[in-house]
């Protein structure tokens, strides 16, 4: 069997689930034939597809298999050392999105990643960057310590590139309330000189959240306008859709409802707890606001199956449903992280609702 032909065939398939299904079959085939090279290569393809065109859930499933193969076979270590580092980079970024992965496990992933980088003579830039990102919701001191180390380390071929280098700075500076520094760091991204698959929308998202939390809605709307068309109907950006729904719940609920209608199906299909939580928080904020609007909004204008959990629900009941869903997830994440960052996000508008009441 010509596995390289099989691999080329993936390109003809629609991205996301159809392609993942085809790669799954190829993995089974390679396993059966015990072709070590392709067993690893197909798993790499699967992980990559899950990271960029899925919700990273399947990446987390396949990675331990790759790790075992890599550890047990020296020839793989010789051939795939760089590719494996790249996979590891994706995994340390994705692992925190799954609350079932404990902090200790994530720490151990980071330690392995650091060791591997050092062994291959690579810069620790990417290690400090991803660890700082994770610790932003876990321990701000470690996030800060790693962030400044990240700035000192040179970029190399495992690093995320200059666009994400600056995006990380935006995210960090915003997390400590340094708006000016964040705007300075975002200059090249906003000017369109630096781009990546996820930028500039992820950078805009950082600013939307920053202004949203501070109730500076006009500023947040400026970035929302630049963001929305870039993230529509992409399961990868369910978290940004969630944030936009939170914002629109205050500024233009009708548009929030439009976003909900477009993305509810993606939410149901997603297996990524972090993305689902962010979406559920946004949906809760939106429906809570909608249920208070006068004159009352009559219907959701969305076709739902009878088995759908929110079928026939009123706006208030829908808000309660998403609160429950978000709250469950928020508790898991906050418990794992040992902070209450996401609880605070969920309760963002509580005071306002009380005031309105």
């Amino acid at each position, binding site marked *: 069997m010509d596995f390289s032909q099989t691999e080329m065939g993936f390109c003809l398939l629609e991205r996301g689930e159809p392609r993942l299904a085809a790669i799954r079959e190829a993995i089974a085939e390679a396993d059966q034939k015990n072709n070590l090279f392709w067993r690893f290569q197909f798993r790499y393809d699967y992980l990559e597809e899950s990271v960029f065109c899925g919700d990273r859930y399947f990446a987390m499933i396949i990675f331990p298999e790759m790790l075992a193969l890599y550890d047990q076979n020296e020839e793989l270590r010789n051939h795939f050392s760089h590719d494996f580092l790249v996979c590891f980079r994706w995994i340390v970024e994705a692992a925190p999105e799954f609350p079932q992965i404990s902090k200790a496990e994530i720490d151990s992933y980071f330690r392995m990643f650091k060791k591997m980088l050092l062994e291959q003579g690579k810069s620790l830039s990417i290690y400090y960057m991803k660890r700082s990102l994770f610790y932003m919701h876990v321990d701000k001191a470690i996030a800060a310590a790693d962030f400044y180390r990240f700035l000192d380390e040179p970029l190399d071929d495992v690093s995320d590139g200059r666009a994400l280098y600056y995006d990380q700075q935006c995210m960090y500076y915003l997390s400590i309330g340094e708006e000016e520094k964040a705007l300075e760091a975002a200059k090249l991204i906003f000017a*369109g000189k630096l781009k990546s698959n996820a930028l500039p929308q992820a950078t805009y998202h950082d600013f939307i959240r920053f202004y949203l939390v501070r109730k500076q809605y006009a500023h947040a709307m400026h970035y929302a306008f630049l963001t929305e068309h870039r993230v529509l109907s992409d399961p990868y950006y369910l978290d940004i859709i969630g944030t936009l729904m939170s914002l629109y719940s205050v500024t233009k609920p009708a548009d929030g409802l439009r976003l909900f209608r477009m993305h509810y199906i993606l939410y149901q299909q997603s297996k990524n707890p972090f993305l689902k939580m962010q979406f559920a928080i946004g949906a809760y904020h939106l429906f809570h606001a909608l249920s208070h609007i006068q004159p009352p909004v009559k219907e959701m204008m969305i076709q739902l199956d009878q088995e759908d959990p929110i079928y026939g629900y009123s706006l208030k009941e829908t808000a309660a449903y998403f609160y429950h869903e978000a709250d469950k997830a928020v508790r898991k994440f906050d418990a794992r992280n040992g902070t209450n960052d996401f609880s605070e996000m969920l309760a963002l508008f509580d005071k306002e609702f009380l005031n309105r009441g």
Partner: protein
Amino acid sequence: MFDPHPLIEKIHALPHGEARLSAVSDAMHQADEAQAHYWRLYFRYEYLTESNIYGDNFKGLLCFPEYLRIFDEHPELEEDMSHDVMWAFKWLLDNAADFYQISMEQILDYFEEFKLRSQAYGLSLRTYYMKRAKFDMAVNPDAAQISYANFKHYPRSRNSDCEACECNFDMEYYLSQNDIKSALEIAQPILNGEKTCAEIPHVTYAELAHYYFYHDQPTEAEYYALLCERKIQNRPEFLKEKGYLLEIYSVTDPGHGWKLLKYALGDFMRCKNPMMRMTFARGAYHLITAAAKSTEYAQSGFLSVLPVAREEEGWNMKTLADFFYEIADDIALRLDHRNQNQYYQTMLKKPLPDASASAQISEEQKQPQHGLIKRQQSQFVTVLPYTAPSAAQMEEKIRASLLEVLSMNTEENTCICSVMLDQNPLDLILVSLPEEDAQPLIVETANGFDPDDLENLLKIPYRMLLVTELPAGGQKSYYLIMKLLAILFPEMLGVISITAMKAFSPAWVQFAGNYESVIRPKDVYSIYIAGKAEDLHMNTFGLASLGMRELELSGANADNFGHYAALLDRTAAFCVENENLPDEGQIITMCYDSEMNEYPLKWQNITDALKTLPPDSTAVKAYREIPSGMLITEGLPAPKEIELTNTRREFFRTRALTKETFEIFQKIVRRCESALVKLEIELNEEMIDQYDYSIELLFAEIDMDETEKLIAVMAQESEAVPEYAIGDRIEVTQDNIVDWRIRTSDGNIFTPEELYLLQGADL
């Protein structure tokens, strides 16, 4: 409860050096009190980093044993912290030998300890042998050879120095073996910019300068010294390298060395690293001894930081030289005593090379390699509408301005002072020129200065002469000079650069002093053409003021001189923008012939072309006399008919200026007849994938009837931005505008660079 987060933020908000060290020390103590072991180690590593990379290593050296002890007491932190510890250990090995207070036995124990720990962590012994070889080079050269061989034998590992540092070490080793050929070959990736880090190429330049100096090639030494100096200015951690430079300048240019001494003396007084102090003191001793040949007493106020008493006439040069000699001698004795050899004392007593040593090298050996020279002083004449102020009046004027005055000295018609402008120190000599001696000046007008106005300007005898050494790169320096003159003489009638032989109008001086992006490379130099129709000669005026040799071009004729003048102009602009002559392999510019064939022009092409010419030809002789300062047409890859590409730098400079001056543009545009703007429009993602670029530049015409906002009507259609068609309206903002053309009612067209010429433009 102990919260390290605010401490970390506070530390990183501080500048490197003493302030940050002190804040980290405070954080260390707080972590100690809280018994937060992870943070005790974290802050100590930060302390070691700060002391090693931005200081004299002294405090880091004192801190290290405690750091190691805490690490050993907490095996639970081994996995997280062992990399940091081994990295900091390397710094200890790098620096321990600098301190005579550390015994030989202790140093060898450190090496042994490092070796054992490296083995325990499964690290290659490459780093151990590298550090050992470096130590042995000054202590035991025979042992150094063995350590070096071992260093090369072991593979790189996670604790290895970066590739640039290893490459530099290789070079240093071959220099220690007096094998300059191998050293230069090894150093190529550093010299051509492929391998760099926080200390490289700075240290590489310094080591090469030092080597050439003590091998009787002070000119070559000075070349590397100048390169090094540009990298290490205001960096106290490079005090040792500054010592090397002082030594070199003591032979090649004591005046320049004196200036370096002035700016580095404070760092020397604060430094506690004996090796750095000794090297700097040795350089200062040689420099002052050289300067003492021309004057018995120094008047410079900066010397007051020294514990040397000022006599009535000033500081006695011999006393100053003795002061530095005693420091150097004392440390050399102690280091040699510890090392049980005479290495540093021999170094101190070594006779310096003769300044004319380079001249004694035969013509064949004198390979022209480099283009950097000392910066020649620049001269600017400011023409005033009144009698030029006296020195005392100038002093008053300067003190009344917003400039920070560092020093001031006035004599008759001359005012000598140092001032700070935009955080750049400027040494100025201002001379009030006597009206009766007003010399005729030969200059050309620049930047739209009306020739008739120039003719009138040259008749006015009220002139102030400013003499200065340009403090930074060409364009930056001119910006500072124009800003300075605009501050001091707002009522001026014009400025004449004697160096570039150009005259600038007062409005332009004001404009250029406000916006750095106004200055173009061509403002800094001129090109002159002379000779007969069949053999024309061209040269630049002005590059020498930036520390480069003037460029000369020979071999053009009446038919092709325009093309070759353009080539010379582009090459000179390249030099100004890069502050250096290009490296051999670097592309200076792309050339196209009439059939649009592309030719990259490299310096290598020029030197290769020379090889094809007979050694006794005029061109080769001239080239030898003026190393790297000559372009010769014969054999160049560029054909006779050439076109030069536009540079991206010019585009970005105009873009920056357009955005900086957008507010003024907004105000004046409505008073004009019409205006065309160039806008940058972002492509959507689909189009980016398709076209492989993210920004499209499109022209649009300002709608003069629209009064509320600045609206333009698209004048151009693009495939890549389907959202906009011809006739569509778009708001012009600082974000999307990149260039403009304004047409006035008298039919004149203006660009952003000519904004100052527009009536009523409030600059």
